């Protein structure tokens, strides 16, 4: 970091939001743009912030961003603009990670050791990225600089958490190689006293990543990247049913392989093209034994392959465009489908284009559209329009309107799961449900079929329309204020619905396109540089969410709630709280101190207001009478020094106030401490 001349201490605007106008953003346009010319809301988290905050995994750094909330359950996911983790696409160098469980991609999978920066684009971005980019895009960009030939780091902390990384770079005129090796292990922790059920079980993770670049000529290069994450989790699961708790022990083994190859050619300064191919395979294998010796296995194998071409064409100084097209072959095998031997497949063909036009110097207009068609569900058009107007040096206005979609996932299409551990209920994917339930019915096992059973048909993608308006204000060199309001309208939400019942009364569920929802909010981010040492920054998000059908029912007077005596009354709209797991208020604040000789220290605070977790009155709607998790503040601090000879030392404490909530915040351990040592060999320029 020290070698990085652009981060001179006096201009240490190093945080997520400010970066500086010359920072380059790739995610917003799928093409390199100066941050000051990007027309949509983007947050950049650079490696310096990641280092100073002491972040190890992607989850660590995302939890401190304004408007982002971590969710736990099936791994740790991220909620963006009030939308669940299913609706944010996670990319590494522009290529998507796959292997979601119940829609959640466990972000602990991503080590931050060789990350140059993280770009977060808020708002629907399917016009460039297709499915899943409904709430936004998180793109993790790995470091490919040649300035540090060797870097080694070691960190140790509470719960025997050890993280060791080596990063080495070799570069000649035409060849570049970088290898990254990371080993992470933790004993896990239990925040529930007197429980043998650990919240986080012992984990070891190995991540390796290799990048090769070969310059065939000044204008042509070949790039090959590999990334492998391999994790072993010691599982110790307790499943309770009717007061009976069954303990199971065993191992969960997850492997995530990513391979990327690309050929890039620049025809001229105006025209370049790139052919990319990507293969990723996520295999998750849970192998457990209950105490009585009964085996329990759960397998998920997700294969995703893609070839794509993208061409960037600059017609003039004011007009440029990109074109892209590609094909995806995707398949999933799972023990939760009818047969774990048979792979369920899908192919997707897509094409997109986006144009950027600056009719006058102060105005940039961007318009794009993407079309995705596939074998398994309805196709999707995703347009987007955005603009940036630079009123003057101090004020900038951005406006964007776009559509996003999320394709039905394999689980929603093919799940065939009966939970023997909890009541023998079944969930069938929509494309199998009628067939499977029909067979059960002919065997006389079905007690009831609901009217919505007859509505089961091929699912539509869930889709959203988002509008974002933001205003960036730089009153002086030391102050930056960005205000944003947004609205997302979502339709065709895919929800689990009971479609029938067995003779025994056990429920049968499937997936239907029924929901309509909205998220509506405002965000403000500020940064103030007091002097060359001290910087203050903070952010706040207010969000209101709701299910439109629920609101219609409440207004029609057909939704009820119960008071503490159990007596029912009509629910009024003022008692409606909207979607579950959403905090209305979220804020973060950071004090940062740096000196010229490389010392740094910071204190960070993250606040989250209460959120609804449990529907206690059985009305299927979240209201003030339901169960909420309490709001809380968590605090983090770290300090360290980067020496001129390449050595860095750091100590830190996370969750300083030791806030824990075992039932609702299993991803937040109690107070933890760590220290780390890092050495980097620096090339003298």
């Amino acid at each position: 970091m020290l070698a990085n001349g652009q981060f001179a201490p006096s201009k240490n605007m190093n945080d997520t939001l400010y970066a500086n106008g010359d920072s380059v953003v790739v995610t917003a346009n799928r093409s390199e743009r100066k941050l000051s010319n990007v027309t949509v809301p983007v947050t950049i988290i650079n490696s310096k912030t990641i280092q100073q905050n002491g972040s190890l995994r992607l989850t660590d750094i995302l939890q401190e961003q304004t408007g982002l909330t971590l969710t736990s359950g099936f791994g740790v996911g991220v909620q963006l603009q009030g939308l669940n983790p299913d609706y944010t696409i996670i990319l590494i160098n522009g290529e998507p990670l796959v292997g979601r469980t119940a829609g959640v991609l466990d972000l602990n999978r991503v080590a931050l050791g060789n990350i140059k920066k993280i770009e977060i684009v808020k708002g629907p971005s399917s016009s460039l990225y297709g499915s899943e980019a409904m709430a936004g895009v998180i793109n993790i960009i790995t470091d490919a600089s040649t300035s540090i030939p060797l870097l080694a780091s070691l960190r140790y902390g509470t719960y025997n958490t050890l993280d060791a990384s080596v990063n080495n770079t070799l570069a000649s005129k035409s060849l570049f190689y970088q290898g990254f090796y990371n080993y992470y292990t933790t004993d896990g922790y239990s925040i529930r006293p007197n429980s043998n059920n650990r919240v986080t079980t012992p984990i070891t993770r190995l991540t390796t990543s290799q990048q090769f670049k070969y310059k065939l000529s000044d204008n042509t290069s070949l790039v090959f990247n590999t990334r492998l994450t391999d994790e072993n989790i010691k599982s110790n699961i307790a499943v309770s049913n009717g007061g009976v708790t069954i303990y199971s022990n065993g191992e969960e083994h997850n492997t995530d392989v990513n391979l990327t190859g690309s050929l890039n050619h620049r025809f001229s300064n105006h025209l370049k093209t790139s052919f990319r191919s990507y293969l990723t395979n996520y295999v998750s294998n849970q192998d457990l034994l209950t105490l009585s010796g009964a085996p329990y296995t759960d397998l998920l194998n997700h294969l995703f392959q893609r070839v794509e071409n993208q061409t960037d064409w600059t017609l003039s100084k004011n007009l440029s465009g990109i074109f892209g097209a590609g094909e995806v072959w995707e398949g999933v095998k799972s023990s939760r489908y009818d047969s774990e031997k048979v792979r369920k497949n899908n192919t997707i063909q897509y094409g997109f284009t986006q144009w950027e036009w600056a009719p006058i110097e102060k105005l940039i207009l961007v318009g794009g559209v993407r079309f995705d068609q596939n074998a398994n569900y309805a196709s999707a058009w995703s347009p987007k329009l955005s603009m940036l107007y630079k009123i003057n040096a101090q004020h900038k206005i951005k406006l964007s309107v776009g559509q996003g979609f999320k394709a039905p996932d394999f689980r929603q299409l093919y799940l065939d799961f009966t939970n023997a551990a909890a009541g023998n209920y079944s969930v069938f994917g929509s494309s199998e449900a009628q067939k499977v339930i029909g067979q059960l019915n002919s065997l006389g096992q079905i007690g009831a079929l609901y009217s919505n059973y007859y509505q089961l048909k091929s699912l539509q993608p869930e889709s959203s329309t988002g509008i974002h308006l933001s205003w960036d204000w730089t009153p002086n060199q030391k102050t930056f204020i960005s205000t944003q309001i947004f609205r997302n309208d979502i339709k065709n939400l895919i929800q689990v619905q009971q479609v029938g019942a067995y003779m025994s009364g056990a429920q049968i569920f499937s997936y239907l396109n029924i929901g309509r929802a909205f998220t509506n909010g405002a965000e403000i981010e500020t940064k103030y540089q007091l002097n060359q040492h001290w910087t203050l920054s903070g952010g706040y998000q207010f969000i209101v969410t709701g299910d439109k059908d629920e609101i219609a029912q409440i207004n029609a007077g057909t939704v009820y709630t119960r008071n503490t005596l159990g007596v029912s009354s009509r629910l009024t709209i003022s008692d409606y709280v909207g979607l579950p797991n959403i905090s209305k208020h979220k804020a973060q604040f950071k004090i940062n101190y740096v000196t010229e000789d490389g010392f740094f220290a910071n204190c960070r605070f993250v606040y989250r207001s209460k959120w609804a977790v449990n529907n206690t009155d059985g009305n299927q709607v979240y209201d003030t009478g339901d169960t909420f998790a309490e709001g809380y503040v968590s605090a983090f601090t770290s300090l360290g020094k980067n020496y001129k000879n390449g050595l860095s030392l750091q100590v830190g404490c996370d969750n300083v106030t030791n806030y824990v909530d075992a039932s609702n915040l299993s991803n937040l351990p109690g107070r933890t401490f760590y220290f780390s040592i890092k050495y980097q060999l620096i090339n003298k320029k």
Partner: protein
Amino acid sequence: MKKLFTQISLVSFLTFTLFACSKSSDTTVVNNTPVTATVKDLMADTVLGLDPTSGMPYSAGKYTFYSIENNAIVSNADSATTKWDLAFASTKILTNGGTSGTGKGGAFIYKGLFDDIKTIASDSVFKTDNAPTAYAITTGSGNGWYTYDGASNLITPIAGRIIVIKTASGKYAKLEIQSYYKGGVTLSPTATDAEKLTKSRYYTFRYTYQPNGTTTF
């Protein structure tokens, strides 16, 4: 002992007594005023313990029979009579008719508020028990009067579900279940498993019964 667990709420008891007094001079004792009562902590086959070998909870496996008309528990010896109107065992509630009893009993679940039912709609269909597949008071989570949360193992009455009852003698009542837990307080999801077992199967409910045989309350 059983009196300990059932008591008429004071207010309704008073109105009932006052009314009874004022009418006591009449020769024909046709009671036209509906009776409203609250029953607290009616035990419904409560859990006795955990089976040491299987680990499963066990109970006596017996229904608690209840007379809505008399607001009192009926002895199990009278299970084959028309003395009872409802019978409770864990989440299952029987009506005295169909496969369950010799009476004219039945029920249906009304979606709305207790006070919304001033007169039972003339097109209402009272279902009767048809064990073991179908009951007048539908069984199963989300189907009848309660939901079961697999994560917290709690049974919660669904807001706005009123059970409209036909008694064994063919009279009408409306009933709202308020709680399934001892003391009328639904347990917190973080309560211990032992508490969730031992404090469950205690019904608190309120009802209004029309003794004159009409469908108006």
